[in-house]
């Protein structure tokens, strides 16, 4: 088993956060995993991305040039990383703020999801990242939605039931959205 993903967006979009969640979940499922963040030059609000590698063997490189899957939360990230995605790779795009016409749908397994809108509809505009992660989980087999949910529960325990539930709804909405599209 081997899987990897680059998750990219603006600093404030929480890409690091979902990368972390994913890494935790993979670890809980007993895989070897690495999580590698890359910050931009700007103090805050710059671009950011992270790479998560999941494997049942020892993980060699935590850095991937040609990822198998990709989650892009904004336009510059699509421009930068799409060309490096492997053919047929999974490409989750936050279509709320990314120009759909730039997505090479024929080349990749693209999931266009209006993550910001879905999150806004849930009344939690900051949870677009969870929506996108949910969509990604729908497209791969290795990491289970349930594990991620459990990780969310653990991580947010101290912040109260409500926050936990909101995050889980966002995840699920993304997951369901992608499932529907795929079916």
């Amino acid at each position, binding site marked *: 088993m081997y899987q990897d993903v680059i998750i990219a967006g603006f600093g404030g979009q929480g890409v690091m956060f979902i990368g972390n969640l994913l890494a935790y979940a993979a670890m809980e499922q007993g895989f070897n995993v690495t999580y590698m963040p890359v910050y931009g*030059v*700007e*103090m*805050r*609000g*710059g671009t950011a991305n992270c790479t998560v590698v999941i494997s049942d063997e020892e993980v060699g490189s935590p850095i991937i040039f040609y990822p198998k899957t990709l989650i892009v939360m904004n336009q510059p990230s699509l421009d930068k990383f799409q060309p490096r995605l492997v053919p047929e790779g999974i490409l989750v795009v936050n279509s709320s703020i990314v120009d759909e016409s730039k997505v090479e749908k024929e080349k990749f397994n693209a999931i266009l999801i209006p993550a910001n809108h879905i999150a806004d509809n849930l009344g939690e505009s900051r949870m677009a990242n969870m929506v996108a992660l949910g969509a990604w989980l729908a497209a791969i087999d290795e990491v289970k939605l349930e594990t991620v949910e459990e990780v969310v529960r653990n991580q947010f325990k101290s912040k109260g039931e409500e926050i936990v539930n909101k995050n889980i709804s966002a995840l699920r909405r993304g997951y369901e959205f992608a499932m529907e599209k795929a079916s």
Partner: protein
Amino acid sequence: MTKVSEKQVFSMPKCLNDVPTHFCPGCHHGIIHRLVAEAIDAFQLEDKAICVGSVGCSVFIYNYIDVDSVEAPHGRAPAVATGVKRARPDAFVFAYQGDGDLAAIGLSEIIHCANRGEKVSIIFVNNSVYGMTGGQMAPTTLVGQKTTTTPYGRSPQNEGYPLKMAELIGSLEGCAFSARVAVNNIKNIIKAKKAIKKAFLAQLKNKGFGFVEFLSACPTNWHLTPLEANKRVETEMMAYFPLGIYKDIVE
């Protein structure tokens, strides 16, 4: 509509590149950069100024202020400025430093530079925290303030007391001008402008070392909104770091 003649009453200073900054929302560095640039314009120093940059959130100062610039290692801007000024006494030499840079690692350099009475001007930005590296304690962190390296709040027992640089520098013989100002409101901005000019004059009139300490907000590492951070400058910082002129022998 009747014809009216319109005059631009606020524009950005000439020597400030008209580009977006990399600073966080509500960070005072942006205001202070502009005030420095205005003073350079006011004395027409653009062509003879040499800026000594330092390491901290202001590290890109040379991308904003369009004058010849050299980058100093963390804390060493006063020594680099000394080297530049001794090499080119006719240049106008100024440095811009944060509180980690100037009051922690670079304390010796700033004191000796001031004490030698080097004819240079130092802009010192005190935001009571290390901005660039992620909010660690600075020598100016207030007692009780939580930072990433004082998670339980700065305690005088373990970390000692916030250093009052404007007073310390002002007490040195070689210093011609030392003041502490803020940019949290218009009144203070006006005073700050005057202070920068005085510090510059100390150099231009060959009187000695000029020093202006700015109390500055770092909303990001204070974990406050820009408005709250702006308010904290007044409520908490000024209480410990009084604004004022601590030395002035320029005129």
